[in-house]
C-alpha cells in the first residue's frame, strides 16, 4: 500500500464522509438518519485507520477501532431500540423543509472552505483539505441541531458535530495523546447514552419528543 494509494483512499473516504453528513440532513425519516450516522462514523473510522497506517502513528489504531465498534454499531443500536420502544412518529420534522436545509448545508460547506482558504496556518502535512471538511461537518451539525424539532435529531446533530471534531483532531494532529483520545471517546459515548435516557424520560413526561412542548421555563 504505497503512499499515494493511501492518500487517494483517504480523499475518497473524506468525500464519502461529507456525502453521508449531507444524507443525514436530507433524511426525512429518523431511522434512515441514524443509519447514515452509522455510515458517517464508519468513514471516520476508515480515515483514522488510513491516517494511522499512512503516517505510522501506532496509537491511532485504538481510536479507529473504538470508533468502528462504538459509533458505527453500539450507539446506532441504542438509538434503534430507543425509537422502537418509544413508539413515536418516525418523521424527522424540522422548522425548515429538506431542500432549504440542503441549500443551507451547501452554503455551510462553502463558508468552511472560504474560512480556511488562506489560513496558511492550518497546513497539516498529510491532507490539508480535511480541515475545511471537518469545519463543514461541524457547521452542518450545528445547522441540524438548530433546525430540527425532534429531541433525537438534536442528539444526532450533536454527534455529527463531534464526528467533525474527531476528524479535525485526527487529521490536524495525528491524534492527541492516547489518554486524552480515550477520555474524549468515553465522554462522547456516555453523553450519547445519557441523552438517550433523557429522551426516554421526556417521552414519558411529555408523551412525545417534540421540543416545541419543551418550552415551559420562560423569563
Amino acid at each position: 500500500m504505497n503512499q499515494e494509494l493511501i492518500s487517494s483512499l483517504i480523499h475518497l473516504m473524506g468525500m464519502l464522509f461529507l456525502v453521508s453528513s449531507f444524507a443525514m440532513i436530507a433524511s426525512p425519516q429518523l431511522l434512515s438518519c441514524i443509519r447514515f450516522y452509522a455510515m458517517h462514523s464508519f468513514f471516520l473510522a476508515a480515515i483514522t485507520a488510513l491516517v494511522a497506517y499512512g503516517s505510522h502513528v501506532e496509537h491511532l489504531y485504538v481510536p479507529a477501532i473504538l470508533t468502528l465498534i462504538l459509533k458505527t454499531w453500539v450507539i446506532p443500536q441504542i438509538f434503534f431500540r430507543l425509537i422502537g420502544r418509544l413508539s413515536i412518529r418516525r418523521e424527522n420534522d424540522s422548522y425548515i423543509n429538506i431542500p432549504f436545509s440542503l441549500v443551507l448545508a451547501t452554503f455551510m460547506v462553502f463558508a468552511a472552505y472560504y474560512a480556511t482558504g488562506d489560513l496558511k496556518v492550518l497546513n497539516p502535512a498529510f491532507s490539508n483539505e480535511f480541515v475545511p471538511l471537518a469545519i463543514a461537518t461541524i457547521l452542518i451539525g450545528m445547522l441540524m441541531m438548530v433546525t430540527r424539532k425532534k429531541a433525537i435529531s438534536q442528539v444526532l446533530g450533536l454527534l455529527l458535530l463531534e464526528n467533525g471534531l474527531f476528524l479535525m483532531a485526527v487529521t490536524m494532529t495525528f491524534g492527541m495523546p492516547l489518554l486524552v483520545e480515550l477520555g474524549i471517546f468515553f465522554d462522547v459515548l456516555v453523553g450519547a447514552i445519557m441523552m438517550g435516557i433523557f429522551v426516554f424520560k421526556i417521552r414519558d413526561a411529555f408523551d412525545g419528543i417534540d421540543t416545541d412542548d419543551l418550552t415551559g421555563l420562560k423569563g
Partner: protein
Amino acid sequence: MQYTATGYSKPLRRIFSFLYQPARRVEVEDDGLEVLRTAKRFESKVHPFFEETFYKPLSRLILSVSQKVKAIQTGHIQLYLSYIFVTLVLLLIFLRISR
C-alpha cells in the same frame, strides 16, 4: 402652639420655591351669604421635582426595557443553540477582520 412640620419647612419652601413650586388651594363654602362661611379647606402641596423629572422616567424606561429583554429567554432550545453559534460566528468574523 407647637411648630408643625409645614410651618417648620415654610422658610425652606419659600427660599427654594423655584425648585419646589409650592402649590396652595383654599376652598371656601358658604350657603348664599358670603359672610357666613360654612366650611373652609386649605391644601398646600410641594411638587416632587427630582422624582418627576429624573427618577420616574428612568425607572419607567428601565422596567419597560427589562420587560422586552425577557423575550430572549423564550424556552426554545433551538434559540439558545443559535445564540451560541451566532456569537461564535461573530467572534470568528471579528477575528478575521482584526487580524
